[in-house]
């Protein structure tokens, strides 16, 4: 499978001269299976370019939403396939105990926050709620599990015969475990990430910032690396960068975290436009 990062920023888009290398768009990752299946992970502002790159030939595309915080759905209304007849768009995401996925998405995709209603989109739209156990999308076997982040949030693991990818953009595995990293059984997200070839993981904060934001649902860069080592992943991509972190600051924070990272651990800092083969 081919994995392309279209959005690597967390919380808020952060365009500008200080963020051109790591990127300013919020979470969006495109995964192309070798059999032609296209999956898009989250619909942050990065999904606008992902939609344009898919071209004009209508086909099926599946969007897997981890949760419905604005930085993960803000680009949805600007995803070209949704606005073109003939496209078959499947959106998967968590509902709540009281509202289904359609009702929750419509809170954003309706006036006055957005001028177009979901039902007015000309594409063929299908909504699916997760977690619902494992399911199949084309050649991908998909696992979704609730993880530690405020409001219902899931992580995803996409597997094929070629390998596996785990996507945990908003995740605080250090919360809920006494000693981190230890006790895999009690570590949020562990089962999804165990032994995976490529892990895309929340790395929003520096260690100093995390200490002041415990419970916000995010990780420090160092925690992302420790979680990856605990899960025994092949490669970890720390991303979902804090919008206040400039490129230079991220260079420094990544270097500091890497210097303390458990060896051996393959790490590639998440930069917009980066492509990985799994």
């Amino acid at each position, binding site marked *: 499978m081919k994995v392309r990062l279209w959005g690597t920023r967390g919380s808020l888009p952060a365009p500008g001269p200080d963020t051109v290398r790591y990127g300013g768009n919020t979470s969006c990752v495109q995964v192309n299976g070798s059999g032609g299946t296209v999956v898009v992970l989250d619909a942050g502002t990065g999904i606008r370019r992902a939609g344009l790159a898919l071209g004009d030939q209508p086909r099926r595309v599946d969007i897997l939403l981890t949760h419905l915080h604005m930085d993960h759905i803000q680009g949805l209304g600007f995803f070209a396939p949704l606005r073109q007849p003939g496209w078959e768009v499947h959106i998967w995401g*968590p509902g709540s*105990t009281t509202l289904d996925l359609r009702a929750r998405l419509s809170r954003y995709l309706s006036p006055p926050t957005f001028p177009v209603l979901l039902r007015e989109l000309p594409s063929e739209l299908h909504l699916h709620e997760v977690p619902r156990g494992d399911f199949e999308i084309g050649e991908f076997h998909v696992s979704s599990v609730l993880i530690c982040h405020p409001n*219902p949030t899931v992580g995803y693991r996409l597997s094929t015969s070629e390998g596996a990818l785990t996507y945990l953009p908003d995740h605080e595995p250090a*919360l*809920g475990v006494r000693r981190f990293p230890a006790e895999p059984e*009690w570590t*949020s997200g562990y*089962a999804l990430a165990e032994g995976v070839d490529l892990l895309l993981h929340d790395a929003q904060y520096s260690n100093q910032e995390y200490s002041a934001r415990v419970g916000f649902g995010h990780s420090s860069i160092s925690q992302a690396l420790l979680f990856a080592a605990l899960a025994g992943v092949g490669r970890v991509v720390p991303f979902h960068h804090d919008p206040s972190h400039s490129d230079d600051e991220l260079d420094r924070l990544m270097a500091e975290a890497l210097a303390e990272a458990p060896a051996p651990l393959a790490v590639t800092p998440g930069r917009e436009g980066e492509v990985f083969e799994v």
Partner: protein
Amino acid sequence: MNQQEIEVILARQLSEYLALPIFLVDQAGNLLFYNEPAESLLGRRFAETGPMPVDDWAVIFQPTDEDDRPLAREQLPLVIALQTGRPAHGGFWIRGLDGVMRRIYVMAFPLIGQADRRLGALAIFWEATD
């Protein structure tokens, strides 16, 4: 390795922060955890007992009614909450692993997650002072 569901992870974390005695089991009834306040009533640290199956914990604390008759595990509020999916409560005697008899009240409720997933149950209990 199997990983606990996030609701169970958070339930354990909450219980570690609270000053109320709390006892946490999975859907099969297996003891997953009890917190420090519970340790003083149960007479032994959780680090020493560790997890245990329902067949063990339902008898090891020797629950008895007011007339000193042993309670079947199906009579325990925690087991009722697991089996019915509804909160349950009750009062009875236990013998802690320190050998001390204590009369306790128990309030148990099921852990029902998103999509009606039955994940276990949690009991809050306290020593009767009446």
